[in-house]
């Protein structure tokens, strides 16, 4: 379906079966898959093929996935999607803080994987050229600092606006508590997650149709927040 040029993805996972499934399932969606069974092999393949994106399993047998990520980040600027097991928030947060673009928990649906891949590959390519963001009913104009929801202007405090700006700039992508705190309050405030909770609550009050069932600003339990850009994972 993707008429543009095919993109190359490097999959670093020790499980042959998972690599094979990803290869089979992503082929028709315009992705060519390069496989690596170990972290070391992954690092070597990454230098050889310069992939458009990397899918990295955090639980590798030879080296810690985080280690591989850090080694990759020394020279590789492309997007990295991290695969992780359900109950490992700590490594997810560590991976995101070490430069992973997003994560997906196993087991996952193909739709989720495609959505995440599209997102990280797109945001990475587009950059921040366009200062006006339209996400569903929400429109944020970074040039004029104007925020509207269904064409009605919303009044935000300075901190609320800064917080929304960070979320909008990384729309669709998960942001860890640390990343948000550093960008909005500065690197010394990383301990103050409770500030973040309060301001997220304020933003939800002003932007969500039902603040108790947020559809726009999604909590990623134990990890951080995500500004949802698609109502359904499978468009």
């Amino acid at each position, binding site marked *: *379906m993707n008429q543009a040029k095919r993109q190359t993805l490097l999959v670093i996972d*020790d*499980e*042959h*079966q*998972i690599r*094979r*499934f*990803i290869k*089979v*399932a992503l*082929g*028709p*969606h315009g992705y060519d898959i390069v496989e690596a*069974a*170990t972290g070391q092999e992954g690092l070597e393949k990454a230098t050889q093929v310069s992939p458009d994106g990397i899918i990295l399993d955090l*639980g590798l*047998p*030879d080296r810690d996935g985080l280690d591989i990520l850090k080694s990759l980040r020394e020279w590789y600027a492309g997007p990295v999607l991290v695969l992780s*097991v359900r109950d490992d928030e700590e490594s997810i947060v560590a991976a995101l803080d070490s430069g992973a673009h997003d994560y997906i928990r*196993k*087991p*996952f*649906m*193909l*739709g989720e*994987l495609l959505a995440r891949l599209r997102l990280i590959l797109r945001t990475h390519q587009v950059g921040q050229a366009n200062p006006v963001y339209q996400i569903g009913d929400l429109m944020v104009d970074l040039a004029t600092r104007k925020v509207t929801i269904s064409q009605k202007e919303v009044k935000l405090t300075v901190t609320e606006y800064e917080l929304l700006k960070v979320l909008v700039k990384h729309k669709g992508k998960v942001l860890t508590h640390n990343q948000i705190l550093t960008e909005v309050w500065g690197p010394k405030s990383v301990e103050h997650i409770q500030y973040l909770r309060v301001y997220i609550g304020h933003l939800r009050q002003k932007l969500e149709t039902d603040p108790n069932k947020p559809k726009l600003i999604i909590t990623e339990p134990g990890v951080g927040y995500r500004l949802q850009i698609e109502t359904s994972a*499978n468009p």
Partner: protein
Amino acid sequence: MSIPGWTNPPETQRLSWIEVQPLVPSLIAVLLMGAFLEPLIGHLAVGIFFLILISISGLIIKRFSLLLLTAALLGLCYHYLLFPPIFSFYVYKAEDLKTVVALYVAAMIVGGLIQKLRRQATTLKVREETTRLHYVLARQLAQTQSLEEVAHIACSTLSRLLNQTIALYLLKKDERHPLLVWHPSSSLQEYDLDREQLEVFAIQHDISFQLRNTRSARSFFPLIGREGLVGIILVSRKLMFEERQDKLRMLETFMSQIAVAIEREILHERSKQLEVMEQTQKLYRTLLNSVSHELKTPLVAITGSASAMLDADTMRDPTVGPLLAQEILTASHRLRHVVDNLLDMSRVDSGMLRPKRKNCDMRDIIAISMHKLQIEGYQNPIELTVAPDTPEIDADPVLIEQALFNIIQNAHNYTQPGSKIEIHVWSESGQVLSSIRDRGPGLPTTDPNQVFAKFFRGSPQNPGGLGLGLSIVQGFIEAHGGTIAADNHPDGGAMFTISLPAWRYSV
């Protein structure tokens, strides 16, 4: 080994009739002897003979009061029976009486001195014996390996030392209330009447070393270690000490030595228990990790492939559908293996494995295994040689087939695709032996048999598995009374040798 001087009744106690009793026949004997000698040597010489006897009686008679009594009785009898006039206490000459009294006093002083000397010698001997026993005890306690041994040594040494039967109660502190447990090494039976009193004592936790008496007139004393009371020793009778403080202190040293040894063994056992618990937890974590990994990986493939098959864009390519279906099938096989392995392992572990034995041919069993392997897509060539005179085996064919399957599957997983697997079957002294050899990298050389340990995996990079396959094999084979050994073939590759009982037609 016993030290008789240890538990002498103290001097302060009143003279008892039992102690006086043996005096009567000896007095009569001495008097008879005197009566016999009197016509030969005269009554004065007999008197002097009696005085000598009284002086040296200090060697035999242990109590001074008894010595006094003996001397007085002998004197009176002599005076009445042998000193003229006979059968009366009348004295002709006052000087005679003075001489006799003076001589008696001298004799008694000599006797008293001799007695004291003797007693000192006894005390020295007791002390020497005690020191020796002490040394023996210290050496024995240092060599003990378990609480049982310490208790045994403590009980036997103490009953020897005190010359009585004793009971050892150990204090269990695990529970909320301290609990006294009678130890089977005790020579004295448990006695309910005393128990309550001992428990009250244990709860009060008085850690001064003192001899106490129970209501049933037994003695008990505490075993005090570095961290307080560790137990109580109950003695069958009331203990009385001649020189109280001295011996009590010696006893205290004995007791604290034993107490420290008991404490040491209890701590040792506790640390062993902790180690076991740690091992169990480690095993549990390994189980949880590998089970969740082994269940999740195929689930990822199934979830992903099935969701991909529902995606119209993906299915536009006609070659993708069958590939995805194949993925689901492979993942399902893998899931089934995991579940089978877990069930088999729990059957082996619970001891519920009862082989349904019958006579069966190894050739058939191997053929079934090979067929199953073929279905699962394993393609390594298998070379089978069976010795012509091989008898049937006495085994459950289903379990043996499963065991063989696991071994061959293991060989497949750890070798290059297409490398040869050799199976030899032969018989030897009532056993049918089968060896399965591969051409892979071999087993760990330090201890090849560690492959049978649960969750052991040759290399984490090799294809999945829980690391249970070979431990299940071992469980199955051993349930038949057979054996399995793992080793490296001298020419390379791993070799497993199974030995199973041959079928006896006479049965």
